[in-house]
């Protein structure tokens, strides 16, 4: 995906021609001569079709966080904490939106001048210079901005699952605000905003955010779950999901909304968007089935939590690949994600004994890494993908993928540790033990989830 707003004259010329080709494809030979003189000075032209899709895609990504992710997570905690996780997702939605408007969009996507390899500038501080008529490619810049905002919302919201049932609400807000600013915005700029990762000779492929969103969030979650420590009674008392109907519905809404996430990342309603949607569906289905069958084989029964987790793992894994691979790649990626995320959530976690409450790392971390790496394989035209860039080998591409994974792991991991340490020093990151026992709904929010 080319998210970097095209400003060079070259693109300005090419783009309208490309778009015009659609309705006018067959007119071109005849009209080219007439048109060209004008095109040389033309600006981007709005496509109502692309805009229609991107308005929809933006709504779909918001649907992923609230209600999707909220429900997915809410169902997995104990009933005394159900509101707390939903509240966290909702408050994050509000807060990240405002931060995005104030400086987030600008730092991620505007031109950072001499610092542009590292971070964007402040030209769009408070969305200055964005008007009703501003375009980004063939869609209004407002739409591009809002679409990207939804990514800035869901990424921190994903982290919530790792420290669910024990983190202080105020500390959570501080963490997300700072993490979003110093971890997410730079990485987003590096990958999609024209920063250094996108300028490597062989750039890593991350169509819809495998690294920026999922690995990024997963590492932060892992760090947080370790630093905050396990829930009281972890591995001793029953911490079964209190409402798996919510978890399944949440997974379903994530699935539906993810079409906006992946196919929307094309920023247009075209063949690539279509293929992105198709492979998203295929990989997700495959991963859901795979987890289900693996569990069935190993434990004798297929479970709702399993199939839902598998679906989410598949969605994560296809995310970076969705603009590059074909159906075959999607099936393999889905299969690998099903197996890998199952292993992440059931084996890996138990081996290292951290309490990543809702398996953010097991699903988004492992799924994200699998997807990022396999993108480097299945982009190959021979395997049904769109093909490597000019002169790029599979090894080179795999290397680029690995670099982007490692950079994300390190950057997000190290900074998350520092941020949490500081917040813990100043206000503390964990609720007192009695509050944890009584449940965060009553103690942090003076409310109860259900009085049926």
């Amino acid at each position, binding site marked *: 995906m080319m998210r970097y707003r095209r400003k060079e004259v070259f693109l300005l010329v090419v783009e309208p021609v490309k778009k015009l080709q659609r309705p006018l494809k067959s007119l071109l030979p005849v009209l080219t001569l007439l048109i060209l003189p004008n095109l040389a000075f033309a600006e981007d032209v709005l496509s109502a079709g692309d805009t229609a899709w991107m308005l929809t895609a933006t709504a779909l990504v918001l649907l992923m966080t609230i209600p999707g992710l909220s429900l997915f997570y809410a169902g997995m905690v104990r009933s005394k904490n159900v509101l707390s996780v939903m509240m966290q997702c909702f408050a994050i939605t509000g807060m990240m939106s405002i931060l995005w408007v104030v400086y987030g969009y600008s730092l991620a996507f505007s031109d950072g001048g001499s610092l542009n390899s590292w971070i964007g500038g402040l030209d769009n501080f408070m969305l200055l210079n964005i008007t009703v008529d501003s375009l980004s490619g063939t869609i209004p810049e407002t739409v591009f901005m809002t679409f990207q905002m939804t990514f800035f919302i869901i990424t921190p919201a994903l982290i919530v699952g790792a420290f669910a049932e024990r983190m202080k609400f105020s500390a959570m807000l501080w963490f997300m605000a700072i993490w979003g600013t110093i971890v997410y915005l730079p990485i987003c700029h590096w990958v999609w905003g024209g920063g250094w990762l996108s300028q490597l000779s062989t750039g890593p492929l991350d169509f819809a955010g495998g690294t920026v969103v999922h690995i990024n969030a997963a590492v932060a979650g892992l760090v947080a779950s370790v630093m905050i420590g396990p829930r009281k009674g972890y591995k001793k008392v029953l911490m*079964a999901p209190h409402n798996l109907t919510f978890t399944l519905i949440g997974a379903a809404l994530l699935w539906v909304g993810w079409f906006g996430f992946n196919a929307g990342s094309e920023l247009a309603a075209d063949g690539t968007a279509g293929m992105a949607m198709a492979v998203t569906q295929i990989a997700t289905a495959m991963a859901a089935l795979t987890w289900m069958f693996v*569990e069935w084989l190993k*434990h004798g*029964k297929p*479970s709702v939590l399993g199939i839902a987790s598998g679906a989410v793992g598949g969605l994560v894994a296809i995310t970076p690949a969705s603009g590059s691979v074909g159906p075959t790649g999607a099936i393999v990626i889905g299969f690998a994600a099903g197996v890998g995320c199952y292993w992440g959530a*059931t084996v890996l976690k138990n081996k290292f004994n951290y309490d990543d409450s809702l*398996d953010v790392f*097991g699903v988004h971390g492992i799924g994200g890494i699998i997807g990022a790496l396999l993108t480097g394989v299945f982009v190959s035209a021979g395997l049904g993908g769109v093909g490597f860039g000019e002169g790029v080998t599979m090894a080179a591409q795999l290397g680029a993928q690995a670099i982007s994974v490692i950079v994300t792991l390190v950057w997000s991991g190290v900074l998350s540790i520092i941020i949490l340490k500081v917040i813990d020093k100043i206000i503390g990151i964990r609720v007192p033990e009695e509050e944890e026992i009584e449940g965060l709904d009553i103690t942090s929010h003076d409310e109860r989830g259900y009085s049926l």
Partner: protein
Amino acid sequence: MKMVSAIIKPFKLDDAREALSDIGISGITVTEVKGFGRQKGHSELYRGAEYVVDFLPKVKLEIAVDDALVEKVIESIISAAATGKIGDGKIFVSDLEQVVRIRTGETGNDAL
């Protein structure tokens, strides 16, 4: 008067109630309870973590009756609720000193 309390399997509730009706018992108070006992619970599996849940859903029937009826009540509960499988439950009988009907203030057997 006696208070007969019976812990039975939930799906036997309807049968028990009918059996009690048949012998003229019209008042019953039912509570959903969880039982631990010889009957083994099921296991639940969540992302690889297996929990053995050893409480089982049961219902408790409480029936206040005249002393003379206690045996009949016990028999009819047994006949309705027994499946012969472990976990069928227990019947407890204790003494009741006083019964009052709130609506009328009647006491004793009249209140039943």
